[in-house]
């Protein structure tokens, strides 16, 4: 696993089981479909017991976005080539889009030309990573 991916997952305090699973999925995409991510993003939310729940793993490079849904316990993989993004929508709570805190929540919805949508949600410090993805990947590809 790339050092920056491991660092990202450590920032999310991801348990080893989750880190290993991410590594496994990156390996699957690389070996079977020749897809190597430049960036990864793990969606998360905080449930009523205060536990951090991770749902989807997004693998992203210039060619497109791959999503592994419920990646911790399912093999449900897809890939969408990305050229242009038609629109995006951000919703947030307790977040100034710069410095997340323990109560911060943010979600990003992307609408592609093909009418395919991506929903990415984040909690706590992961909100900063979502905003970085939005800034570095989404904005440059959004149709003017």
């Amino acid at each position, binding site marked *: 696993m790339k050092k920056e991916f491991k660092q990202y997952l450590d920032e999310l305090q991801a348990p080893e*089981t989750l880190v290993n699973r991410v590594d496994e999925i990156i390996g699957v995409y690389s070996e079977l479909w020749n897809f190597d991510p430049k960036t990864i993003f793990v969606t998360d939310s905080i449930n009523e*017991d*205060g536990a951090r729940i991770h749902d989807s793993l997004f693998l992203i490079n210039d060619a497109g976005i791959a999503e592994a849904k*419920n990646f*911790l*316990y*399912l093999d449900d993989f897809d890939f969408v080539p990305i050229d242009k993004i038609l629109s995006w929508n951000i919703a947030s709570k307790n977040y100034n889009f710069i410095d997340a805190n323990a109560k911060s929540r943010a979600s990003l919805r992307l609408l592609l030309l093909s009418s395919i949508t991506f929903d990415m949600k984040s909690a706590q410090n992961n909100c900063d990573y979502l905003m970085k993805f939005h800034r570095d990947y989404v904005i440059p590809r959004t149709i003017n």
Partner: protein
Amino acid sequence: MDREDNQIQERPFELSSYIIWLQEYLGIGFDDRFPEYYVSVCTKIRDNISKSNIWNEIIRNLKELDAQYRRSHNNFPLLAHPNQPLELLIKPYNSMLKKTFRMNVINNNNWPNPPREEGWINPYECFECIDDIIRTSVVVKYLDGVKHLADDISKLASNLSIGSTVELKAKEEGYYAAHIYVSHVEEIPNIAWDTRKTEMLFEIQIRTQVQDLIRRLLHTYYSEHRLSKSEQKDIWQWDYKSDEFATSYIGHIIHYIEGKIVEIRDSQSEIKP
């Protein structure tokens, strides 16, 4: 039978008479220092356990064990309160005395003889004889999580070459939980402040969220029930108006329902692609 033998055979049925019995017939007297001594020793033991390898290994691995359970159970969580820190608790002094009372008298099927080969339970030696002087509890979401976590913790202990025993409790009064007894070696100061090295146990209780709620609500009932040993005890199962009937069967029914919930949860997971 001489007077002394006859009076030993008089079984004390209350804590106050038990304490007198300890003093008069076993020569175990309590001075004013004993409660303070007990708390002081327990505090030392608790603090040492909190610094031990096995305790820190359990703390460190709880999140990992939750993730492993989610991985194999369709993201259903293991822990009910994942962010709640584990706390080591000391058995209160009166609870310790009551436990020796139960062991020596109430539940002693060998009465008027000692309950075990080694003899009577001496409250001054409770640290070696009582397995839950220091204890903690973990609450899991689902019924299968109880045994799952118990086995995981047992493996952690085994990896550190520390002895542990898992007991799956299913009591008549509707109490269901796993109790893990983990070995711990401690230097116990005697009341005269010389020390003895002893192997003792500390207890980890694991139960479901609902069983935890029941226990919290009915703790006083369970505690008092265990101190009474009436001749009528065996027919409470037919006394549907009694508190014992209601409280005991709540525990059993909840346990059954929790089993069905896990069954449904797992069968639904099989339906999904």
